[in-house]
């Protein structure tokens, strides 16, 4: 039998070179979606294959890897991807944002500020910000090429006309380096300001759609809006019930069958770090800390 053997970080070196070339091009043209020959990965499309390929292509033996999903290191998909690289690359893994050199994420940007030298790898399901306004790839590529973004503003206009404000709460479109309109992946718009002028390199991988794009360090990233209806960050009414943080993105947790709720940090590393430093919220023993049955 053709018994499988695998290279460091799974992908063969030819494939990694191809992906690195796409990444370099993406960095050279901030916000532009570079087509790349995405491979089948041993996890399904839509479960992070784009991010995994980018991570596999940039990972070196001395890297320290952190993987989060929904802000947490311990959600099932984050565990699965972290284990994949621990097994295929043997790199050190961590849950600490600060200790990591490469952070792969789905749906969140860590609360702790990123620093120069770190790489944040986003998993992207639909890279095309214009996709739901214009389904044709041939047409959207032309719109990007000609910087025809009137249609995007039509959508924002419609929101304001209907609701009085822009009603897009996640995957909120941004303009990168004053040129390309980009989908930040389905992160909550709360995280959008973190992308602007960020010291870390931000890479975006969409496996099924075969696109890589990037925000180089210290690049201006502006959330689309109108002068008289500026972008606003989502603000929670209450602080985190565990660590008392007032400036973090919170998950709503239903605590019993009577509809009781508590709000806790979505970024578990951030929350635990604050608790370890002595910060307290109104609750301390919470479902957050219980082992669950999966």
């Amino acid at each position: 039998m053709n018994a499988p053997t695998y290279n460091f970080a799974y992908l063969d070196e030819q494939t990694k070179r191809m992906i690195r070339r796409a990444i370099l091009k993406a960095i050279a043209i901030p916000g532009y979606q570079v087509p790349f020959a995405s491979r089948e990965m041993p996890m399904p499309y839509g479960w992070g294959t784009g991010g995994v390929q980018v991570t596999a292509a940039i990972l070196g033996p001395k890297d320290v890897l952190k993987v989060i999903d929904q802000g947490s290191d311990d959600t099932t998909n984050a565990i699965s991807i972290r284990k994949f690289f621990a097994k295929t690359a043997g790199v050190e893994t961590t849950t600490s944002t600060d200790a990591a050199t490469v952070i792969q994420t789905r749906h969140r940007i860590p609360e702790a500020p990123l620093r120069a030298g770190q790489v944040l790898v986003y998993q992207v399901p639909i890279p095309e910000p214009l996709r739901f306004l214009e389904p044709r790839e041939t047409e959207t590529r032309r719109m990007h090429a000609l910087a025809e973004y009137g249609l995007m503003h039509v959508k924002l206009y419609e929101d304001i006309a209907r609701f009085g404000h822009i009603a897009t709460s996640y995957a909120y479109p941004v303009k990168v380096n004053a040129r390309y309109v980009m989908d930040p992946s389905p992160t909550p718009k709360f995280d959008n300001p973190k992308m602007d002028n960020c010291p870390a390199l931000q890479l975006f991988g969409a496996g099924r759609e075969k696109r890589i794009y990037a925000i180089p360090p210290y690049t201006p990233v502006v959330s689309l809006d109108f002068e008289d209806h500026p972008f606003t960050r989502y603000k929670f009414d209450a602080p985190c019930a565990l660590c008392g943080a007032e400036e973090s993105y919170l998950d709503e947790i239903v605590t019993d069958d009577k509809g009781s709720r508590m709000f806790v940090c979505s970024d578990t590393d951030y929350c635990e770090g604050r608790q370890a430093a002595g910060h307290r919220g109104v609750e301390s023993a919470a479902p957050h800390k219980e082992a669950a049955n999966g």
Partner: protein
Amino acid sequence: MVEVTGASDQPLLVAEGLTKSYGRLAACRDVSFVLYPGEVLAIVGESGSGKSTLLQMLSAQLAPSGGRVSYRMRDGVLRDLAELGEAERRFLFRTDWGYVHQDPAQGLRMAVSAGANVGERLMAVGWNNYGRIRQTASSWLERVEIDVARIDDAPRTYSGGMRQRLQIARNLVTEPRLVFMDEPTGGLDVSVQARLLDLMRSLVNELGLAAIVVTHDLAVARLLSHRVMVMKEGRVIETGLTDQVLDDPREPYTQLLVSSILPA
């Protein structure tokens, strides 16, 4: 008959020897003319006479097999349309040109509010103030006699005549210098047509627009245009001042058209 207003010495658009053939079939042959700013030209003929093919070539949507179209850009330079890049061509289309389709569904976003339909071209050229965009859209709705209270309704809730008026507002909001119209009153009731023609005539006058109107309806030509070109089998067979051609046609074919003997 409309007075020629704002005409200038320099032509706005020049067509030279325009020809389009499909295999041995020539849909349009050797059409040449000059259009001046503020001038309205009607192209009339039966269906199949080549007038729609001609309009598509004039508006750079179809590449001619022979001949060329030149347009005087806002900087005053006369440019061959075939030599414009796609970005320049598309920019022309959303700023200096308008295109009114016979079927408003082709020219409007049917599921998007009237305000956004009118505002889209403004946003495409960088307007970034919601209040100003909405204000401008409102004043255009007024100008085309649409109740401003309907600004947040999508055109699919509009009547045929309203849709066509909305399409006109969407085109004129960037104050283009040239508007192409393809059977703009086709498919509308006669009374609705009359109101629309009246509106178009006053807008063209007020704005000093140049327009090229393709129509099979000689009443449209008479009401809107200064000059008429009659087409038959891909060729221009007669051209002249509208009143002159329609009141005193020289060609037997035009005489038939005018006496409404030929089905349009």
